[in-house]
Every structure is written in structure tokens, then in C-alpha cells.
């Protein structure tokens, strides 16, 4: 059950990395732009909130499978993900286009 229990430490580290991407990198927020970034193969990592509707989640995962892009299931709902991005709105899914100074792409994608 070690894999199922997400430690607080790794969760904070994702938040830190995400904050760094928001500051220094390029990203898009929202389902429509995530699909656009996948179609144009610009997205490098997709992050999906845990309360994303299952059909939408499967669709994004399928596109990411075709694209061979990693998907990270964020441990929090869309409200939390929006807060992690530093925004005052809910974010269900986001796509990282340029990580900037962050190493989120190198350290995250192993996890599904």
C-alpha cells in the first residue's frame, strides 16, 4: 500500500515544481487548450485533477498515449490544482509546454 499512500513530502514537491513552472515556464490551463497542445505535440506533461470526470480523464489519457506524453494525476481536486497554480479559479487539467527552470518533466512522468 506504499504506492497508494501519497506522502505529504512528494505532494509538496509537486506543488513547488508547479509554482516554478508557473513563474518561469510556459503552460496552458483547461481542457480545450490541453487537447490543442496534445494535437500540436507541444505539451510535455499533462496534469489532471482527481475530480476530473472519468470520460474526460480517459480522453486526455488516450490522446497522451498517442502522443507519448506523460500524464500526472494530481493528488487534489480542481480547486486545489487551481490554487497550486496560483490562480483564483478551478483548474481541472493543465499542460506544461516549457518547464522553464523546473525539473518537473524529468522527475514526474514515471508516475501515472
Amino acid at each position, binding site marked *: 500500500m506504499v504506492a497508494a499512500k501519497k506522502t505529504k513530502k512528494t505532494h509538496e514537491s509537486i506543488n513547488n515544481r508547479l509554482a516554478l513552472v508557473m513563474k518561469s515556464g510556459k503552460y496552458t490551463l483547461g481542457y480545450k487548450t490541453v*487537447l490543442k497542445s496534445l*494535437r*500540436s*505535440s507541444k*505539451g*510535455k506533461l499533462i496534469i489532471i485533477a482527481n475530480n476530473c470526470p472519468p470520460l474526460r480523464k480517459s*480522453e486526455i489519457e488516450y*490522446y497522451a*498515449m*498517442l*502522443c*507519448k*506524453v506523460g500524464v500526472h494525476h494530481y493528488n487534489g481536486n480542481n480547486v486545489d490544482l487551481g490554487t497550486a497554480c496560483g490562480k483564483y479559479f478551478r483548474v481541472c487539467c493543465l499542460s506544461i509546454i516549457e518547464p522553464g527552470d523546473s525539473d518537473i518533466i524529468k522527475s514526474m512522468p514515471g508516475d501515472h
Partner: protein
Amino acid sequence: MVKFLKPNKAVIVLQGRYAGRKAVIVKSFDEGTRDRPYGHCLVAGIKKYPSKVIRKDSAKKTAKKSRVKCFVKLVNYQHLMPTRYTLDVDLKDVVAVDALQTKDKKVAACKATKERFEERFKTGKNRWFFTKLRF
């Protein structure tokens, strides 16, 4: 980071008259054109799927059941669902964007793709493409 909306990719049309139909990408325009400033592609799809052919059908019946009706269309990427399947049918010489300008060119293009699809269906390959999507 691999581009997947390439020619020979099987896709499902999501919107419009042909919603729910399977199609194959013939030519893709990622950057768009002057008339269509968005990513779109030229697809050739199946308007009417061939019926199920069983062993006890006569030759005449098999021929009748294996008929495929096709369409040719320019579709926005947003209105397509890509799949992991591909269909290696060479349609580049038959279907071109100028085929959509006039009605008779379009009919000729559809007729030619119909032949190609029918011969592919008769070989029994790409069975997924020729089965109707149930929804």
C-alpha cells in the same frame, strides 16, 4: 510529443452529419490555410458501412452486402477523435482538396475511394475500420 494526426490515421468524426463515422486522414493542414485558419485535415470516411457477410451468402448477396458508401470532407481537428488504428490505403492521388470544389469532382473522388475501401474490406484486413461504431 509525437505527432499523431498524420495521413493514414483512422479517426472518428465527432460532429456534423457524419458524426460517429470512421474516417482516414488523407492530408493534414496543421497550420491551417487562408480560408480555414485552424488545424484541419482532409478525411475520407465511410458514409454507409458494409453489412455483415456470412458464409452461406451467395456470391451475388456477398457483393451486395460488401458495398461501402464514402464521403470526403475537410474537418477541423477539434471535431475528430483520433484512434490508435491506421489504414494503409493510398488515397493521395485520388482525393485532393480541389476535389471538393465542384460536385462532379467530389463524386469522382468518392467513387474512387469507394473502390479502394471495398477491395480492402474484401481482403478482411482492417476489420475495425469497417465495423460500425455502436453508441
